């Protein structure tokens, strides 16, 4: 599954990143590296973006970017 499919409250581990270039590096720097946990927290009132809890911080990411983060099935 990919990160955009997480429902609020659901948690999973990162398997792989599909983004490339500087966004790939940014996601890694924020803590989205294989094995790390991510938890879906909030969905914006207009449906996009979604805020995820990553390494203790709340980070908003748009759906198109969340689709590039592959997750291992839910914890």
């Amino acid at each position, binding site marked *: 599954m990919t990160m955009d499919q997480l429902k609020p409250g659901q948690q999973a581990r990162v398997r792989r*990143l599909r*983004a*490339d270039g*500087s*966004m*790939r*590096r*940014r*996601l*890694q*720097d*924020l*803590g989205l*590296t*294989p094995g790390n946990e991510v938890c879906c*927290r*909030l*969905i*914006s*009132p*207009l*449906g*996009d*973006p979604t*805020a995820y809890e*990553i*390494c*203790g*911080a*709340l*980070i*908003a*990411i*748009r759906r*198109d*970017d969340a689709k590039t983060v592959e997750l291992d099935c839910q914890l």
Partner: protein
Amino acid sequence: MPKLSSLTVSSERTANLKVKPGQSQALSDGGLFVRRRQPSDYVIALAGNPNVGKSTVFNHLTGLHQHTGNWPGKTVANAQGYCQADGQGYIFVDLPGSYSLAARSAEEALARDFICFGHPDAAVVVCDAGCLQRNLNLVLQIMEVIPHTLVCVNLLDEAAKKKLKVDLALLQQRLGVPVLGMAARQGQGLEQLLPQLNRLLKQQGPTAAMVPLRVAYPAAAEAAIAKLQPIAARYLTEPGMARFICARLLDGDSSFSQALEEQFNLSPASAPELFDLLASLKADISREPGGWEAFQDSMAAAFVRQAARLCQGVTQQSDHRALARDRRLDWWFTSKWTGFPIMLLLLLLLFWLTISGANVPSQLLSQGFGWLELRLAAGLSRLGVSAWLIDLLIHGVYNVMTWVISVMLPPMAIFFPLFTLLEDYGYLPRIAFNLDRSFQKARACGKQALTMCMGFGCNAAGVTGCRIIDSPRERLIAILTNNFVPCNGRFPTLIALITLFLIGSASGWQGSLLGALLLVAVIVLGVMLTLLASRLLSGTVLKGVPSSFTLELPPYRRPQFGRVIGRSMIDRTLKVLGRAVVVAAPAGLLIWILANIRLGTGTLLQHMTAFLDPMGRALGMDGTILSGFILGFPANEIVMPIIVMTYLAQGHLTELSGSALAQLFVQNGWTWVTAVCTILFSLLHWPCATACLTVHKETQSWKWTLLSFALPTAFGLLVCFTVARLAAWLL
């Protein structure tokens, strides 16, 4: 795509980096020079992730008042401050927050360039205790360039509330650099910073024997670095940087390669041997299983993994209840059903408090100034001052200046502290989160909402703030549309006109509520036109699709009421008022001259207003109002005073309280349509001179500056003309 100022590095700077020690030394960063007061002064880079309290630490150390607030991206231009302890001088450079030295935005590139090429003597990296692992990722990257690093684990007070424990001694032992714990907002732990820094720089005390941790890259990368390093060292004046530079060349960070060429003249043309070897190493690596991408990932992961290992046993969390409170608040502020209503209600409350609270003090001030005016006029005439000069001083300059104060001061003294409280609390990033989808539809960046919030204060600041936007295209859109939100200088005009003309017979709290509702409507219109203009730009001169971005939503923090109110009074209210008064006085003189020099049948002012009158009428205003906007180009604060002064120069009126002002306007043919059109034109016209110059500074292009001038003006002309036509047709 235009080259943006902070992405370019002047050749001047390279020259400055090569100054011999002992001479008057100057370091620069993106046009900013760090000048030592004495050759022995230390230059310290203050770095860290966004929103971890760097500016708070900076203010505490230097006694300066760099703006702080609970949202990422406040510090966009780096500020510097000086402090002294035990005879040793330190120059602190407050850098914009960054997650990594792999820069994505202009402000991050600024921070990266100063750390990598600015030659600071040491770095102080501020970390958020609640998010230590991610912060250590940056610490490790900075330590690779600057071994003299001091780590401040800040926000220990917040961590304690979350029952989060941090073993600072263990962290210090593992990192091999001094680690300090602090709660900077409370001023706790800061007293240790300068002594520790001094010992670190002079290599004294127990930390002197420590060996800073060096990140170990995967074996393949270490082998490649070992081959590159001796060759790279030949091209560098500082061989100590060789390992770091080789690692970044292997990373393949294109923005870094560009900076490297500009700073060290290191490019395939100037160092063919190095880049040929790099190319062959890359080719070898690409043939390995996983290829180039896997290799790059392993380089980035080296830092992330090391940071995770460092944290093991250093941080321990046992309570998630404090987080639950934040999540509940977030639900109210961002859920589908309550997100937008709460946003509008907060805005409404803000304006209602401003309008209703400002009424009484405004009246008192105006009465007080009226009383003083009589005494002043009497005093001057007793001193034998001629009547025309008294007329100029009292009815021209004094009246207008006191009008500015009594009408502008009370609302500003209420609005800005309240807005700063919201800012300090951490609400602004939630606005960006709520609105992002609309910006995405306009093919722009959600962070534009943050730059709009900065525009509420000052459009010039908002334009500079656009550096937080990663993509140059989206950054330009945000710069060009920033003027669609009214700034400090325009709020009082809007409030005054709404109160005088549009509330009608409603008085008391109903009146202020209606006024607040109308003001919210004006702001919402501004936001909608921002989106429309952004979409127009995306479809025409700035074609493109929305790019990727991430936005951090910080934890809610209890605002520091006393400090916030004090600072916003001084930083914003008095500054804006001062500017208005200072600019209003010479403008008053200019108007007086224009109104008193006769040319043919009338005064210069009469000629000007008469010339502009047909156009003004077509836009639902008149020649005087249009002259006010034109002559108010230096500062929006003086548009209303100029209009008042022009009317006064033609008719005569001695006292200017609120109702007298309305009377003056009505005598000059104002109706509610005039007021509506003036409000709309105030929202939608050219940026002030300062904002225009800032646009030029940020874009380095007169073409974009002209567009930033023309775009809101075109909207204003169109909207005012339509409203005037509709009104003429309907009424």
